């Protein structure tokens, strides 16, 4: 568990291995966010002790808003609520998130209320909290697969998430493995700018110099 539980940015790092493009994206995210003056709660999930969400709904009925299981899954909910921006970094896994990212994300249920209401033609659960956070999602795919069915599914998944999570601003990008450091940085900075991370342009300039050198 990381030592910065109240960072304004919660970076959920769902990598399964040390694939270089994802590592570059992670570095670019940290650099861009830090340059923008944001405190980054950088959480590498792999190997972290978070029990599978058992779907018991005790977080709705017995301990409202809190996961009944006391581990990092409970901490996840708190860190999510206290963030202003959430970033997902994940290998695109059959068009979805990695199991490592998902083991945390499944614990987002306590931020919802159990009730059902119709919104924009579909049934949804109301939010427990008034606060919302922006969402930035970066997925990595094998080389040549950025237009694949998996990549398209991934973008649809993020779009579906936004219907439930209601981020004021959100964006999603898919990076191909093997993409160079400079291109990764440009892409990541572009995504950061879309969710209003100030100072990205300056960070972009700094990063460019660093990479080219």
């Amino acid at each position, binding site marked *: 568990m990381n030592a910065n539980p109240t960072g304004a940015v919660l970076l959920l790092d769902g990598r399964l291995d040390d694939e270089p493009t994802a590592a570059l994206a992670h570095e670019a995210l940290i650099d861009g966010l830090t340059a923008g003056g944001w405190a980054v709660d950088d959480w590498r999930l792999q190997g972290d002790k978070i029990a599978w969400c*058992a779907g018991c709904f005790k977080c709705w009925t017995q301990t409202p808003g*809190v996961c009944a299981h006391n581990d990092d899954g409970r901490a996840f909910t708190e860190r999510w609520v206290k963030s202003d921006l959430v970033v997902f970094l994940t290998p695109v*896994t059959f068009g979805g998130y990695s199991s490592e990212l998902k083991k945390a994300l499944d614990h987002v249920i306590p931020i919802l209320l159990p009730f059902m209401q119709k919104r924009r033609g*579909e049934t949804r659960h109301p939010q427990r909290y008034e*606060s919302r956070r922006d969402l930035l999602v970066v997925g990595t795919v094998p080389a040549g697969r950025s237009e694949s069915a998996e990549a398209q599914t991934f973008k649809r998944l993020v779009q579906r998430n936004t219907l439930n999570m209601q981020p004021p601003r959100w964006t999603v990008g898919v990076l191909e493995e093997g993409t160079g450091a400079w291109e990764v940085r440009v892409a990541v900075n572009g995504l950061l700018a879309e969710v209003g991370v100030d100072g990205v342009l300056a960070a972009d300039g700094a990063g460019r110099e660093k990479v080219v050198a």
Partner: protein
Amino acid sequence: MKAPKQALLLVGSPKPGESTSESLGAYLLDELEKRGVKSQTLHVAKAVRSDESVAELRAAVAAADLVVFSFPLYVDSLPAPAIRVLELIAADHAAGVGADGAGDRAFVTICQSGFPEVDHNEVAMEICRNFARAAGFEWAGGLILPAGGMLGGQPLAKMKGMMRTAVKALDLSAEALAAGQPVPDEAIRLMAKPPIPKFGYRFMANWGWRSQFKKRGQAESLKVQPYA
């Protein structure tokens, strides 16, 4: 797709007790058994618990020529342990583990959620379809059950009246799958019908939650914001 001899039900619900996913999958498996297909059931949360359970999972997948994957919708997608199992199976396929049967195996999915609309589940179904392609399975179709809360983990055979369209959908699916055919469109259409009108379902669900809280004398704590 060939007529299967051995089916494997992978229950994608991490719930330790009775689950709606297991209820639906078990009914389909029973119907397949009646048609001469042998079956085995594994639960994803247990399957990824240890090296031994992963070995058992690998053996079961290798032995099956039809995998029935029944899971609940979690945050617009599959529950984490269900994804973990798919990652393992696909990695084995990529590494050539158990490659003997590759190409002759079919994958069929049942996805249910507490929402009365099927739209919520469609991305999860796409994910399963993408997995099937990546892991060398033939896609045998996917069924989506809306308003899964109506079943609430009860055995489907017990609930036949209210769940009659789901029963019919699974009967049609079993007949087709046992004959080496994909799930028929009619079964998909029937399964997608909510057991009761959407408005009524939402009303009943909200009433049910409120009653639970009232009974416990917790009505005031329902909307607490512990991390505000």
